[in-house]
């Protein structure tokens, strides 16, 4: 590894915070050994951010955990040096005993860690304040009173309003963004020299993500910490990182300054990754379908209230998930619905299919709209049998490619099930049809006899699409269909859907929180906020010239995968 010695020739040796040399981690699994991390070397430098980028399964989280020695069986570190530099002599973390006192002194105190899912890494049975106090007393040997004061101070630093009161609240009383702030406060409690942030904002909405990343960057700058940011989001990398290391299959395939990685990638894989991300930053340049005929599917003033009534029928409480939404989908059109979590977009999609019954309003379907026939059918009033016919024409593609396929059925059974239920095919005709569908979504015929666990996320999503296509639908409702996928796969699936649309004359309702995906895929976009549609327009207009305040703040919070043109820094905040 002659090149690892000069990874940071431009940094003076005394700026180093942590170095990793030739780290390898193996997983001893039931059927094989997985080399999750192989010969990984990098440096963390004070005041700088190294982004560890890679797709799922590339070994980035395992690397971070190995630094803190918190990897559990069946994983084990097989080789490598981890050296922590500080005011005293350099410490060899890899030589310390598992769970020894030295390692525990480093965890939290000198290396702070922020997890992806704050809910599962904070204790639900103790107040936020108590958890921070504990860590302060443990690592900084403070008295209870000092620790309490410091806790309030920390919560104030992470911009939690009324920190005195909030310290006495429990995790479940905090929103996702607040929890992540508390988590950051906890990680920073002992003033660590190195901060590891493992997908810190993946579970958060873009606007919250922008705020959290702002906060982390500011605190890092104030304290001069070295930071390792683990993420799959190249946009975030471009906004945040000074240096980038690209991981794939356990190896670092390329590392260097952010600008060089983005604008002059040296390896084929990095180039592909960046291309896939950049491609999603463009529209698809498709002439929009004509919108003069009758729309294929319309929602008219659809609302959904969730609530609980007392046994006498009085309403105890209620929330309005969807509030009087109207929209139209024309034949051949891709309509995007974007919004943050809790905006009601998924409920709206479910109401279109009547998986959730609308409280008020109507869904109108015009089966012959493609031929100019405006005969209306009221989906909300359909009896069971008619609804089956409607659900054959309007299909759903699910978000989670793992949960949406029955693990006990072969691919043939999964894809063929709608055909069997509808009585459309059986025996060898069924087999041929399934093979044809698999071919359509780019899977080989011999996938038929396999079970879903044999496939990757992207392949599973293809199986899900094949199932949706089995009954020759007119409309496909895709609910976050690509959000569980890696960026390169995401682009492939979107291309597949666009290709299928051309061949099969489909219309899509595409529900997503990811603005770039919507821009790539959709003709028109409806922006939802708190159950209402605040703005509708063509995809280009929404992205480049948003009119509503909320849309503006949403668009400006989306990280831009170009380090020369950072967007988040100059974002617009929306106060509602």
């Amino acid at each position: 590894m002659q090149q690892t010695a000069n990874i940071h020739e431009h940094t003076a040796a005394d700026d180093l915070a942590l170095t990793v040399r030739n780290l390898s981690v193996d997983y001893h699994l039931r059927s094989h050994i997985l080399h999750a991390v192989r010969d990984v070397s990098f440096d963390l430098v004070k005041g700088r951010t190294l982004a560890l980028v890679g797709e799922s399964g590339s070994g980035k989280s395992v690397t971070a955990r190995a630094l803190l020695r918190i990897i559990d069986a069946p994983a084990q570190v097989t080789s490598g040096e981890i050296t922590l530099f500080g005011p005293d002599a350099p410490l060899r973390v890899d030589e310390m005993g598992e769970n020894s006192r030295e390692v525990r002194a480093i965890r939290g105190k000198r290396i702070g860690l922020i997890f992806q899912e704050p809910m599962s890494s904070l204790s639900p049975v103790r107040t936020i304040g108590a958890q921070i106090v504990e860590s302060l007393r443990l690592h900084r040997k403070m008295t209870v009173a000092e620790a309490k004061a410091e806790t309030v101070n920390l919560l104030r630093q992470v911009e939690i309003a009324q920190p005195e009161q909030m310290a006495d609240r429990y995790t479940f009383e905090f929103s996702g963004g607040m929890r992540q702030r508390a988590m950051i406060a906890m990680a920073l409690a002992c003033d660590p020299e190195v901060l590891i942030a493992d997908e810190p904002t993946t579970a958060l909405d873009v606007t919250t993500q922008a705020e959290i990343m702002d906060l982390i960057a500011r605190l890092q700058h104030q304290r001069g910490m070295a930071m390792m940011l683990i993420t799959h989001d190249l946009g975030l990398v471009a906004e945040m990182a000074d240096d980038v290391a690209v991981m794939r299959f356990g190896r670092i395939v390329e590392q260097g300054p952010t600008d060089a990685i983005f604008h002059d990638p040296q390896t084929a894989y990095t180039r592909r990754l960046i291309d896939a991300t950049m491609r999603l930053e463009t529209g698809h340049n498709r002439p929009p379908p004509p919108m003069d005929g009758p729309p294929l599917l319309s929602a008219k003033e659809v609302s959904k209230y969730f609530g609980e009534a007392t046994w006498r029928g009085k309403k105890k409480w209620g929330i309005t998930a969807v509030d009087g939404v109207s929209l139209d989908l024309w034949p051949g059109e891709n309509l995007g619905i974007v919004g943050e979590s809790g905006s009601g977009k998924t409920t709206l999609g479910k109401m279109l299919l009547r998986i959730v019954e609308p409280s008020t309003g109507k869904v109108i379907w015009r089966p012959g709209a493609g031929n100019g026939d405006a005969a209306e059918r009221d989906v909300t009033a359909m009896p069971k049998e008619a609804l089956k016919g409607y659900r054959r024409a309007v299909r759903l593609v699910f978000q989670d490619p793992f949960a949406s396929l029955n693990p006990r059925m072969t691919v043939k059974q999964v894809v063929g099930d709608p055909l069997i239920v509808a009585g459309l095919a059986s025996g060898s005709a069924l087999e041929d049809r399934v093979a044809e569908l698999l071919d359509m979504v780019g899977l080989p015929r011999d996938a038929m006899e396999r079970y879903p666990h044999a496939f990757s996320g992207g392949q599973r999503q293809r199986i899900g699409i094949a199932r949706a296509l089995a009954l020759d639908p007119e409309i496909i409702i895709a609910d976050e269909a690509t959000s569980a996928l890696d960026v390169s796969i995401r682009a492939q699936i979107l291309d597949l859907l666009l290709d299928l649309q051309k061949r099969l004359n489909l219309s899509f309702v595409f529900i997503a929180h990811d603005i770039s995906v919507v821009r790539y895929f959709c003709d028109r976009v409806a922006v939802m906020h708190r159950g209402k549609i605040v703005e509708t327009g063509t995809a280009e207009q929404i992205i480049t010239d948003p009119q509503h305040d909320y849309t503006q703040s949403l668009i400006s919070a989306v990280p831009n995968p170009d380090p020369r043109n950072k967007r988040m820094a100059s974002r617009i905040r929306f106060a509602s």
Partner: protein
Amino acid sequence: MTLVSHYDDLAEETGPAISPLKPGDDPDKIAVASQWQLIRARFFANKVAVVAGIIVLLFYFVGLFAEFLAPTIPSKAQPRFTYAPPQSLAFFVEDAEGNRRFQLHVKGYAMSVDPESLRRSFTIDPDKIVPVGFFVKGEPYKMWGVFEMERRLLGAINKRDPMNLLGTDSLGRDLLSRVIYGTRVSMSIGLIGVASSLIIGTVLGALSGFYGGWVDLSVQRLIEIISAMPTIPLWLGLAAAIPITWSPLKVYFVITLIVSLLAWTGLAREVRGRFFALKGEDFVTAATLDGSSQRRVIFRHILPSLTSHILAVVTLAIPTMIVAETALSFLGIGLKAPVVSWGVLLQDAQNIRTVATAPWLLIWPCLAVVVSVLSFNFLGDGLRDAADPYGH
């Protein structure tokens, strides 16, 4: 300048780095494995569970061929040998010249009478040799109540000689034969009981979990009421209600039903919980959207995902049944003589004097209960862990 790892010079990698645990293993094998194959592989990796499974099978084998395996019929009293101690099997005899000769045998009994209490007691007499053989003719019996047979696996060659490997009871009945016959009853009462509680539990649990609402509410309240019943008094009452004129077999079935009527609640809760969880799964929603009827959703999509869990719960429920039968019979409200079960056998060991003079009456039936219950529990644990091959 960016740094390029030297690996990129090599051919482009297409998948994660994997090496087999042992040379020659094919990591691709599990790709085409069905869920059942995964469960099986996982189960067989758990050695304790496999051993427990083998023991359970052995018990059932013994129960199935009880007539043939038992040295004699369990009701045959030997008034000459009451409370006779266990004899041990030996292989060689020495004749007068001191030559050792192979002869499977047990030692006979010597009787002594206590001059004060006139109680007879038996000790092993090392000089009396009772030759023993395999497949000897013994008491005639009906195999499975159908075939007239005389041959037994093991017995004294002379039919009139005593052979009591585990000793005898107060009437001089052979304990080994009784334990073997008891195995049939005790192990099968579990099966029948669990089968009926399985049906009630699964159906009510499924209804409760699938429909929710008031169906769920009433089933759950019913479960709570049944769980709140003090079981022993209830059993006492029900057992007292069984007409005295009924045949022991009829009583046996009724007792089984009574036990299972109270034991389905745990299974119903388990099934309900699983149904609740699975009902919200995307693949179930997908099946509904595919046009599947409710029945098809339940039987084609939800229940198959449950079978392995149900199997595990059932395996854990059988030992509860065995223990319940033993306890009831011990208290004299379950099975009664002449039916032989482990619980009935333990009735003989109810007073301390018997335990002091004939401890084997307590030890062997107890051991049978403990070993079978433990085996079932280990087996059930193994099955439960294997039931979800994607966990961990």
